[in-house]
């Protein structure tokens, strides 16, 4: 059996004086060339997990293997793990090229040529003689990336890599960095609390809560078939409804709905707003009680069957407040497991 690039199993960490462990039994694999996102609300233990893999925290229990080799006894500098910190941690007393050359071995001239090559790769050739404080946030981030690449790691850890960039810059930088990372073929583990970032940047994501990993999978999978109400709500807006399942169908307040996975008995279901359709119907059970027009689509809040439902509707004429509608599910509902 071939070894994954990174294998983490049963990672547990308790800080002195804390009632609960910050990380409890966390485990996942990461392949070379893959981007895995650890996502969760602040305080869920994702950064601590990252720091344990980097070697800056020692887990109380668990196993970390890099290319099949036990990494726990290794000091951070021996693990072959590059880290890009949230604040980039550039060395302010060194120039950009000296920063990038920091982790390169060899004679000075060769190191700087090498550093220039990586600066070129992140699109910053010519910035070498500057100091970090003379660069913009996005440029500093790319220097930090180049610095990590230059040290020739096996995998790279990114801690909230885009949180210090302003919103306008973020989406563009994200695409660019993704392209650069993919070109290197390294394994990338990154931490974020931003669901949009995780969904668009990662090949797979692991949702964490209170120190535990709740679900791991491809973004579209986790989004469409969340394992629990928490995962469903954390990755985006959703409608939760109780239902009585009978195999591939369930009886719900919105009628009999098809299920994304077979289930039996009392279940909690998730239906994303974009999976609900509204039809004007004077005899319909729903009444529109709120509307938010967002340009390419509109979100309606509909009161029906004693609850309020969110539905995103693309195009078409806008419905007025107070209008009667019928709600129709356009996609199967996802049954949720217990928390």
């Amino acid at each position, binding site marked *: 059996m071939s070894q994954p690039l990174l294998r983490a199993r049963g990672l547990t960490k308790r800080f002195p004086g804390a009632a609960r462990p910050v990380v409890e039994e966390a485990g996942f694999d990461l392949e070379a060339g893959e981007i895995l996102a650890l996502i969760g609300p602040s305080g869920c233990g994702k950064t601590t997990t990252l720091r344990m893999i*980097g*070697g*800056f925290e020692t887990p109380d229990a668990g196993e970390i293997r890099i290319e099949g080799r036990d990494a726990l006894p290794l*000091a*951070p*500098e021996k693990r072959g*793990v*590059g*880290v890009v*910190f949230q*604040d980039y*941690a*550039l*060395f*302010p*007393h060194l120039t950009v090229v000296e920063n990038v050359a*920091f*982790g390169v*071995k060899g004679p000075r001239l060769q190191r700087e040529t090498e550093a220039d090559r990586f600066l070129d790769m992140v699109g910053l050739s010519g910035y070498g003689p500057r100091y970090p404080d003379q660069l913009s946030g996005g440029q500093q981030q790319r220097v*930090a990336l180049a*610095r*990590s690449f230059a*040290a020739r*790691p096996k995998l790279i850890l990114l801690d909230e890599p885009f949180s210090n960039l302003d919103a306008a810059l973020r989406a563009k930088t994200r695409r660019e960095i993704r392209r650069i990372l993919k070109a290197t073929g390294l394994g990338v583990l990154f931490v974020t609390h931003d669901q949009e970032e995780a969904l668009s940047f990662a090949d797979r994501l692991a949702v964490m809560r209170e120190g535990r990993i709740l679900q791991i999978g491809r973004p579209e999978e986790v989004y469409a078939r969340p394992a629990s109400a928490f995962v469903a709500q954390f990755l985006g807006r959703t409608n939760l409804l109780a239902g009585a399942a009978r195999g591939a169908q369930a009886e719900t307040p919105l009628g009999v709905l098809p299920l994304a996975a077979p289930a039996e008995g009392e279940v909690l279901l998730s239906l994303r707003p974009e999976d609900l359709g509204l039809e004007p119907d004077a005899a319909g059970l729903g009444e529109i009680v709120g509307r938010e027009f967002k340009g390419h689509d509109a979100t309606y809040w509909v009161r029906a069957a004693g609850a309020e439902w969110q539905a995103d509707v693309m195009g078409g004429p806008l419905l007025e407040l107070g209008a009667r509608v019928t709600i129709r599910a356009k996609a199967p509902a996802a049954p949720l497991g217990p928390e």
Partner: protein
Amino acid sequence: MLIPFGYLLARAFEADLATLQSLIWRPRNLRLLGNTLKLTALVLAFNALIALPLAWLTLRSDLKAKGLLTFLCVMPLAIPGYVMAYAILGMSGYYGFAHQFFGLRLPRLEGLWGAATALTLYTFPYMFLNLRAALAGVDPGLIESARSLGRSRWGAFWAVEAPHLRPALLTGSLVVGLYVLGDFGVVALMRYEAFSWAIYTQYSSAFDRTYAAWLSLMLMALTLVFVWAEAAFARNRRFARVGTGVARQATPAALGAWRVAAWAFLGVVFLASLGLPLLALIHWMIRGLPNMDWAQLGGSFLRTVATAGPAALLAVICGLPVALLAARWPSRLSALTERLAYLGYALPPLAFALAMVFFTLRAAPALYQSFAVLIFAYVLSFLALTLGPLRLALWGIGTRREEAARALGSSGPGAFLRVTLPQLRRPMAAGGLLVFIMICKELPITYLLAPTGYTTLSMNVFSRTSEGMMAEAAPFALALVVFSSLFVGLILRYEGSGRGRLPKDRS
């Protein structure tokens, strides 16, 4: 740190029980305590009266040249307390400049009021800086909301700003209070019977060392009570600004008709704190110029530098691991080391020096009044000064960059040397310079521990002034003042960075 203290205790308990009882229950002790407390209270009251208006005027009023005014408010720190006492003494008398310049025969200001005046004029900048930093930290938005809720400017000050100033007032009081307790030069020159003067006379003339040891212990206990009281009062403080981001500048308050009064107040303060000592020094300098001993001045300058230099260097070298331990690996042990360093700084220097004397005489007589012990005492006493800038810098640098260096393949110590140490150069230089200049001004430790005949600038000022040789003391005092001005520049830089407790000066 603890060993000399132990010897002080041993020395104190050497006498037999009956003598001890008579020593401890001597009515004189109570009088000394009363005198010391009276002096402290008076200085603190004067301090608040001067510093609070100054802080407000230089920060929130519409006066012009506030930067210059702030500088002038801090400038008195350049004039050591005993030089201030010298100036006040040199003002009066037949040859005093008041009589020579203005034909006024002023009564000699000494005792309680003389000491309180000299100490206030010297220490108020500490209170000023503390209050000013606190006032600057009050979010102007709070004042604006208080005013929008119907308070006047004056009412808003009491409702919003005053509560925020309480911790600063407390801290300032501790700094000034410790200074007053530890002061030796001023009370000795003013012949005011406070603890440290009694210790000194007991030690130098009466040679009753057991009693001197007891008095030192009492003074140390009083110091600890002060520190404890400040900590107890400060425990419940809440930090004012919770939001992030940069606070806006407050709109200056228009003084209107009060402007004249404000300038008159500033004028009186500056005249007393800066004009007076400078006039006195220049006056006596001119009188003493014809028979000035340049060689003696140069010699004592060199002797001053020769002890202060190595001690400052050693203090930085010792300070680095202490600060590192406290910032990176907080534990009981690191907290204890740090607290001991601060204790060494807070303890009255005369009592501390006396403890060192007993220690060397008993444990290593060969070292008595040697350079090694002198420098050792300096380092123990001033180590704390290097900790502030270092700790501040270490917190600012954090561990991220070292971790980044390790992820790039540096070993632990290697990462510290390559990444953190280069960024510590400035705070190390600042801390070292601070210690250096403080030692130059230092009096009691030098006086008790320096080798016989080894006279520094401060010792020359003190011994000559106490013998009434004002003209002879002037050049040494002037040299010290010029030198200490550097110190003020450093203090202002710390204030500029706006954080941390200001170093307490003593001389």
